[in-house]
């Protein structure tokens, strides 16, 4: 029996697709700063540009992402927690450290899936409010990193021809990095207790892809298959006050 073969000739791919996303975030952030400077009609809402007061640490907010409560109803297979530390510098700049853990376990008819991991985000928030110095309305940027692992077993494809042979994938570990831009609000509900939300855009930088077993959901980042994920967080904070006299 004679045989012939056709082989795919690979084409070299580059990574230009990431450059656009990163430029988008940088340019969007710059555009927001430019807006603050040039729009004099909104002076009551936006903070003045020229302010020579030294930055003073006015409080630390400790927050819990209460939005994760919705998992109990809508994603019962996932258990996750996210907390935040927010360093208030003169009510204008906020150093932010956020972190969380996430665990997913699903046993379905045609697959079993498990994942667990943690993440940390470090960045800054910039308050654009002048009128409500204890509240916050502004934009933020973060760098995020997730460490997680996932595994699957009993995967069955319901195809009518191939003999069903359950597939298992051993546990694999990943490190994922992303950039995050946000805008949001924080308002003081009662003394030193704040509620706030943020709308987020997360842009994957590295570690999202696996040619053999694509991660489904990356802790802190969202769907692994997407280069860009949108999201929202809902926080309740307690502000530990100090430097009140300054």
């Amino acid at each position: 029996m004679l045989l012939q073969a056709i082989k795919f000739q690979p084409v070299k791919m580059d990574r230009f697709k990431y450059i656009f996303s990163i430029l988008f975030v940088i340019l969007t952030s710059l555009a927001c700063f430019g807006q603050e400077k040039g729009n004099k009609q909104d002076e009551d809402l936006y903070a003045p540009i020229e302010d020579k007061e030294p930055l003073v640490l006015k409080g630390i907010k400790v927050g819990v992402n209460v939005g994760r409560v919705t998992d109990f109803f809508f994603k019962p297979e996932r258990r996750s927690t996210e907390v935040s530390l927010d360093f208030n510098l003169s009510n204008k700049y906020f150093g932010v450290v956020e972190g969380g853990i996430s665990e997913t376990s699903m046993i379905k008819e045609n697959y079993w899936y498990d994942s667990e991991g943690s993440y940390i985000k470090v960045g800054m928030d910039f308050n654009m409010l002048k009128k409500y110095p204890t509240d916050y309305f502004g934009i933020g940027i973060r760098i995020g990193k997730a460490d997680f692992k996932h595994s699957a077993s009993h995967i069955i494809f319901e195809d009518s021809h191939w003999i069903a042979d359950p597939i298992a994938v051993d546990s694999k570990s990943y490190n994922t990095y992303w950039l995050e831009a946000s805008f949001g609000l924080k308002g003081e509900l009662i003394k030193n207790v704040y509620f706030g939300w943020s709308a987020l855009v997360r842009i994957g930088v590295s570690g999202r892809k696996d040619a053999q077993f694509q991660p489904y959901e990356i802790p802190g980042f969202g769907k692994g298959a997407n280069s860009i994920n949108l999201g929202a967080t809902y926080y309740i904070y307690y502000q530990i006050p100090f430097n009140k006299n300054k």
Partner: protein
Amino acid sequence: MKFSVYILIITLFALIYSCSDDTCNADTDTLLNIEFTVNDTNLTNIDFMDNLSLYSTQWSDSIHYSEEGSNEILSLMLSPNSDTSEIIITSVNAGLKDTLTIISQRELIFYSPECGFITNYFIDTLFYSINYIDSIAITSYQISTSKDGQVQIYF
């Protein structure tokens, strides 16, 4: 400002709730479409196409063009368990068979909790016998939920 906070909170919660769905509504098939073109008059005289069937030693059954094919095309899934998918082409009145051996790269993807896993493929190499086959062209190497693979076989 606080009024707007409440409005936006409600709006965003509503958006999150509306995203919830427990059923798999997506098309998760990842198929290779094989198009047959019979130019050999000896084969057309024996109704080669109408009696064409595909099978594999790893299948529990066969695919018959008369039942599942149309427009000279048959669709099938490559092996989800192996990088090598061997498909045998036969026809009732043909004395010989041809064999396709498709070597592919597989990508296992957890599509969604509702739909489970899918396998995307990338055809790397295709070996084929030339008992009746004259030539083969691969017009789409990628096989995913959004794009079927395409192979044209000329007899």
